[in-house]
């Protein structure tokens, strides 16, 4: 992963580097707001907190915000005018996101990109440079390795930084990243630094114990799972939206109007498959009437439908749903139980 083309960014130069970026970019980076560590816009390099692990919100927040206007309208006396805002032009940098979040963008790319793409996402993605910070110290809720990523994965990133203590090894992971590096003067990483980087990476990986989630589970989920098991798995679930809203790959949304007397706007907002209203029809009929069906949908969508349809699981193992679930309903255990459940 860390290859020949790697460069070095000395820590004492980080502040200057960020200041340069702030000149002509909107920079989003981990920063503290009270006790919360959030990926949010920074005004100064001093706002950035790189050592404290992953942010509460995931990188999707920057490309698929919770609320987005589709258009504003004015409707009077049967006449309607629409006003669609032109896209912003500012370039943005996601600095210091974790490899799991960067990898999550690949899944969002498959959903929002491609034919009939989502103009908001596609436009922002094109304007965004992803500079991720490799994890040297994965936490107990992390399970990126189990899903094909890793604490130092370069998937989805343009540049990846790895902390060597006194400096960062910087590696370009995309064409965009290479072009970015070329424009700036960095020292080449010497053999010694690369060796240290490799060692740190190995240590980070070996500190995790990956459970096998993958083809076996996918195969298993092609066969029906006992409805009673879904009931058991979902028994403690509160049916809130924490797991889906903080997830870097969950992307379900709602479209609704917010209206004043004659004007208003149509907005696109996050929605969650865990909410009863998500599928409830106007007649009151709900194809997923209870928490059990909604829990099943979340798991099946992530670990069966998406792998089948988009060739990538809807999970990158960031562990936010594990750590932030109010009742500590651990998806890793759920998957393990599903893998072991006998076919019907």
């Amino acid at each position: 992963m860390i290859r020949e083309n790697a460069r070095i960014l000395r820590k004492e130069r980080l502040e200057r580097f960020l200041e340069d970026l702030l000149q002509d970019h909107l920079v989003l980076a981990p920063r503290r707001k009270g006790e919360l560590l959030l990926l949010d816009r920074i005004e100064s390099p001093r706002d950035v907190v790189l050592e404290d692990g992953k942010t509460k919100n995931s990188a999707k927040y920057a490309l698929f915000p919770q609320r987005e206007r589709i258009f504003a309208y004015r409707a009077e006396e049967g006449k309607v005018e629409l006003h669609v805002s032109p896209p912003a032009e500012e370039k943005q940098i996601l600095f210091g996101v974790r490899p799991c979040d960067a990898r999550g963008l690949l899944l969002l790319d498959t959903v929002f990109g491609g034919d009939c793409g989502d103009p908001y996402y596609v436009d922002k993605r094109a304007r965004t440079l992803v500079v991720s910070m490799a994890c040297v110290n994965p936490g107990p809720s992390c399970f990126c390795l189990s899903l094909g990523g890793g604490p130092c994965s370069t998937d989805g990133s343009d540049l990846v930084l790895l902390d060597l203590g006194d400096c960062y090894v910087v590696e370009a992971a995309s064409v965009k990243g290479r072009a970015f590096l070329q424009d700036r003067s960095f020292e080449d990483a010497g053999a010694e630094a690369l060796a240290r980087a490799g060692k740190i990476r190995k240590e980070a990986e070996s500190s995790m114990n990956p459970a096998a989630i993958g083809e076996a589970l996918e195969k298993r989920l092609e066969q029906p799972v006992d409805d009673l098991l879904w009931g058991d798995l979902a028994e403690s679930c509160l049916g809130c939206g924490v797991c889906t809203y903080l997830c870097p790959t969950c992307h379900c949304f709602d479209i609704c109007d917010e209206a004043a007397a004659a004007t208003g706007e149509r907005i696109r907002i996050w929605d969650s498959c865990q909410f009863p209203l998500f599928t409830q029809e106007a007649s009151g009929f709900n194809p997923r009437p209870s928490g059990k069906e909604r829990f099943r949908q979340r798991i099946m969508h992530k670990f069966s439908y998406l792998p089948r349809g988009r060739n990538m699981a809807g999970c990158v193992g960031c562990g936010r749903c594990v750590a932030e679930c109010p009742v500590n309903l651990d998806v890793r255990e759920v998957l393990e139980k599903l893998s072991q459940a006998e076919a019907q």
Partner: protein
Amino acid sequence: MENPYVPFLMKIEEIITETEDETIKTFVLAFAREEDKERFAYLPGQFAEISVFGKGEAPFGMASTPTLPERLEFSVSKIGVVTGALHNMEKGDTVGVRGPLGNGYCLEAFKGRNLVLIGGGFGFSTLRSLTNYILHERNRKAYGDLTVIYGARKPGLLLYRRDLDAWGQRTDLRLHLTVDQEEDGWQGHVGLVPNVVRSVAPGPENAIAVVCGPPAMMKFTLPVLGDLGFSDENILLSLEKRMKCGIGKCGRCNVGSKYVCSDGPVFSQSELVHL
């Protein structure tokens, strides 16, 4: 790039109250711009999202036929927020339209085949579209026998009476209307759609059955078609789910791994048994 979430505007040209209880109205919409009309090339079975500004959007199948491209017609049952607001609108008002969305009936594959169209209640709108398409003088020769079986709870709830009367006069279409509750003067069948399908017993040879209606009707019609000898590949269903984006992104209308909006809404029974 084109923004698939932004509707174009259409004017309500006519509002037709379809049912005696006035809960279903058909809205006839006129294009405001020629380019919208040209872009809106659709097949029977496709749908569009209709916007009432300030209330939101809801999906409706086109009830009109592409053979009359000047107008779009949507039949709307007054159930929720958007449909309620639509019912309060008047001739001359403006709505938004996004579409055509989803996949319609595969007309190419229907060519030369006998067609059995089975509809119930409100679900009949896209079958009306399909029927009128096939009956068009340019198209009729390309298709085999056409049988239409359509049921409602009572005669006053049957949609498109003007079309049904005209179809009844024709010799190139077998029309079977049925109601659950008989009324004076009713000359059609009495009984639930699945039972009528069984008694009419359309032949499965070289035939495709298209079913659209309430879930219960579809559920009980499927085994009847099976008994009559229709294979799963030759049974098409048009599904309905709560939808928002209509382009397979917002995540709510899936049946298993398929989205009703972008993979459907028309599915063959053989596809559905795998979901």
